[in-house]
């Protein structure tokens, strides 16, 4: 058993290199000068004299700053709306009684099985007919609800003992107050988890933004970088494109490194990519 450990380590390090190498390559390429990069027929694994000109170029030549700003706005509003809507709905399911609750909840769970690809077509038509193409509203509205996050929160809310609720009732606290003063603070870890997962989802969303925006003023980073690659400087200036890629990737990597336990346990509890 003891003897085979070096092979274990070797294989683990090999996979770590497989994972990290593309990140190394994107940072490396982004600090190579334009002419230096184009002069090397065989790629160099190191860069003798790094330059930051590509980063300046990425912000001045295309509106990368605007794409980032759009993405931040889109992510913040979508996530905030999702959290509020989900908290209210989860509370309704977990705490309050109304006729037919079980039937409604079962039907609600069935909605989880609907694939996004099926509903995107009509949503595209709806948003187009409402003249909301190339607007934040058109980007945000269909991205708000997540059946799964409501379910996750509801499960957590349901774990809070009933006695707390009755105690609050006796003290004259309203349902609304009880929700925000007791329930939400007690379930903070779950709320934080779904917030972070939604932020990741929003930051990386590509399909919906690419369908609903064709005015570069409303591009998010995903279709922004696609635009750079196909008709911007990406066709010729690979180092500048890689600089843009680095800038787009950094915010989420920082978010991940700061919250890695929350993110990883949140994903175990029910995330899938996309």
């Amino acid at each position: 058993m003891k003897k085979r450990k070096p092979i274990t380590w070797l294989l683990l390090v090999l996979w770590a290199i497989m994972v990290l190498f593309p990140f190394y390559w994107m940072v490396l390429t982004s600090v190579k000068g334009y002419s230096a990069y184009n002069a090397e027929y065989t790629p160099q694994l190191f860069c003798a004299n790094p330059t930051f000109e590509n980063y300046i170029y990425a912000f001045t030549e295309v509106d990368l700053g605007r794409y980032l700003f759009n993405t931040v706005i889109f992510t913040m509003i979508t996530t905030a709306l999702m959290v509020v809507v989900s908290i209210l709905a989860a509370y309704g399911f977990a705490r309050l009684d109304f006729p037919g609750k079980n039937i409604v909840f079962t039907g609600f769970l069935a909605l989880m099985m609907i694939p996004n690809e099926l509903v995107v077509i009509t949503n595209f038509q709806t948003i187009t007919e409402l003249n909301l193409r190339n607007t934040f509203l058109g980007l945000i509205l269909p991205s708000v609800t997540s059946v799964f996050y409501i379910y996750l929160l509801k499960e957590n809310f349901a774990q809070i003992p009933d006695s707390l609720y009755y105690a609050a009732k006796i003290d004259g606290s309203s349902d609304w107050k009880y929700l925000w003063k007791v329930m939400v603070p007690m379930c903070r870890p779950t709320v934080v988890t779904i917030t972070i997962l939604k932020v990741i989802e929003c930051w990386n969303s590509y399909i919906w933004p690419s369908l609903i925006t064709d005015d570069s003023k409303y591009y998010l980073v995903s279709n922004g970088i696609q635009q750079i690659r196909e008709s911007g400087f990406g066709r010729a200036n690979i180092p500048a494109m890689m600089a843009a890629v680095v800038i787009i990737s950094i915010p989420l990597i920082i978010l991940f490194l700061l919250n890695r336990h929350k993110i990883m346990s949140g994903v175990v509890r029910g995330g899938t990519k996309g």
Partner: protein
Amino acid sequence: MKKYRGLLYLLPAFLFLAVFLIYPLIDVFIYSLEEGYSSASQQYAGIGLYNYQYVLRDPYFTQALINTVLLVVITVPISTGLSLAIAFLLMRIEKLRSLFQTIYFLPYVTNTLAVGMVFMVLFKQTPYSVGFVNMVMGWVGLSPVDFIDGPYWAKMFVLCFYTIWVVMPFKILILTSALASVNPMYYDAAKIDGTSSWRTFYKITLPLISPSVFYLIITGFIGAFKAYSDAVALFGTNLNSAGMNTLVGYVFDMLYRDGGGYPSYASAAAILLFAIVLTITVINLMVSKKYTHYS
């Protein structure tokens, strides 16, 4: 009135769901049956199955179907097997395990489009640059290939390679947490009985984590059938001309992009895709019921 207060809390969620999930779900079936629908006039010629016939006869759809099926058949077994091996190796070490776990999870939080472009650069060969992968292939005496604009098998290889790289973090994470929850008592018992480590893995570990493995296989099939962004990142938005379109890509191209403006064809294709995924998932569930061990 008080009886219905709960519904008030559900109202915002239901409004969103009704408009953007339930109504579209019904509507997509209606679209798929409306023949000759035009977005401009919002009129259609008749009701029938013509849209399905058209899609099934479209060579682009056939190509997308072949690409997607190949992608699924190649990436799901490899990524599941590889992640199982890596998760298993991870459990054998204690020092630095959390560091490795963090590194392995990194691709999950990165933008598929952005990192896909790094893979494009790594695999691309141009007259001015041989590219990293071709350089390495040159070291072992293989002749260079353009993986991005070259032969079909090369493009398929990059697409599978990148897809596996993207889906690994999720699978490794799920399997390591499944392995970590196996009661060590079983291993101790096996050790006392002098069971070989391969036999321990095959007879004890694998059955105990089989629910997680099947969960990954099922979600893996579903996810791979929906591949699209990865292909766009590698080959650009015009996937039909690259011959690398996927089923989801076909749906969106029909809806919007260059050949777009045909929501009826897009709907028919989306429903066909959904029917395929549903069938495969049901088969998967039936198989997993037979082999999964629930303690």
